[in-house]
């Protein structure tokens, strides 16, 4: 059963990954745009148990590490997203007040995206990689957060339905 669920999850992730790099990346949006794949992975984690959230985050991060445009070392996104995925799932799964609140989920995902990117930039600077100037970074991170707030309400219902179809453990209403 775990294998089947894992395979489905992997296929869905791969599909969104392909859409991200073939479609979303073709559109140049202001303020740095958004990452559909990152939003989807974190939404998926937010809908899952902490274990599934961490594994999903790790797999999603690994795919992001494989992206040709990724300039960090292999495993960097996997490290970040497994931690953030676990964290967001842990926070949502255990807090009854947050469960069943779409708005809180949107804000959670947007916050998780911003945190993930901030950690990524921090690790990049620790690894001695070029991160650009502060103004550009703030603009890009803030823009990503805003875009995520705008896009998440459209991504979450899809992610929720797929998640429910595969796991039938949690539901987004």
């Amino acid at each position: 059963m775990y294998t089947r669920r894992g395979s489905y999850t992997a296929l869905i992730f791969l599909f969104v990954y392909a859409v991200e790099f073939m479609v979303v990346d073709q559109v140049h949006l202001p303020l740095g745009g958004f990452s559909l794949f990152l939003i989807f992975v974190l939404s998926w984690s937010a809908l899952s148990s902490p274990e599934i959230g961490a594994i999903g985050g790790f797999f999603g991060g690994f795919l992001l590490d494989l992206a040709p445009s990724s300039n960090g070392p292999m495993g960097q996104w996997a490290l970040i997203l497994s931690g953030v995925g676990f964290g967001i799932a842990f926070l949502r799964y255990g807090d009854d007040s947050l469960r069943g609140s779409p708005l809180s989920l949107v804000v959670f995902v947007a916050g998780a995206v911003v945190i993930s990117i901030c950690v990524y930039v921090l690790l990049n600077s620790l690894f001695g990689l070029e991160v650009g100037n502060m103004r550009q970074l703030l603009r890009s991170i803030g823009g990503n957060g805003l875009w995520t707030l705008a896009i998440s309400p459209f991504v979450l219902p899809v992610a929720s339905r797929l998640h429910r179809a595969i796991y039938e453990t949690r539901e987004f209403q």
Partner: protein
Amino acid sequence: MRYGGDNRSRLLLVTLIVTSLFLITLDMRGVQLISSLRQGTQSVLGPFQRVASTAFTPIGNFFSDVAHLGRTRTQLTSLVDQNAKLRRSLIDLKGTDAQIKQLKSILNLAGTGGYKIVSAKVISQGTSLSFSQSITIDIGANAHITRDMTVICGDGLVGVVKEVYASTSLVLLESDPAFRIGVRIAGSQEIGILSGQGTDRAMLQLLDSQSSVKRGDVLVARGSEGGKPFVPGVPVGVVTSVPNSAGLVSQLAEVKFFTHLHALSVVAVVLRAPVIDPRDALVPAKPTPTPIPTVTIFVTPTPFASGVPSATPSNSAATKN
């Protein structure tokens, strides 16, 4: 109630983090397998990305344009301004080219004739209200211009300086009805008086009633005492028609000016006449007709077979069989 997690989930998290750190370490140590994975992904994604790029670029451009509407508008305005500037430069350049061409021909003429000249730009073509054919040039007393100096261009005579101001001069054109000049027919050396008619044509009146003029004769300025108002040898025009002047005291002829007086941009004022009269040296060469090749077509009659026209003899043989 908040989910507290258990040891298994924590262990899983630690395992994933350690795995990630392991991958990072391998990559930073330059392990070939890790970089190959990224290259492999690029190889797989590349063709799909190219196809998607072709399909989605217009949509992407649309969103980009919408997103950067303000910037695009600014760029558009800037490009329109640049375009207008370039257009003006191009027009200026064309004008400059024409002026250079005229100036070159003036220098050629002046060089051949041995005139000392000073070039000038036409700054005004005169007005229809003045009822005289004149132009204003951008040099005057500041360039040692005085009244009654000859004004020429590359094609020949333009007129004579009528008024001189501090930095400009008024030139009476040869087409003005009040304009008179003594001319000489190149070759025969017959002399006459040429009068402006207000158009690009003038009327020639020969002084000697016994002399004759014919169509195609070229007229050059005879020259005045001291080179003022006219220096000798400047081409003036060509005889276009000779009316029947039976019963008249002297022979008349219609002359077309060499100079296109409506297209003047650069002229030259002759400051000093040549020491030696150039005579007919400045007469423009007659245009030589370009030979037109005659095309000859040879037609060979095709043989007929059995009353049916045939393209080749072998075909007709096949028809017989």
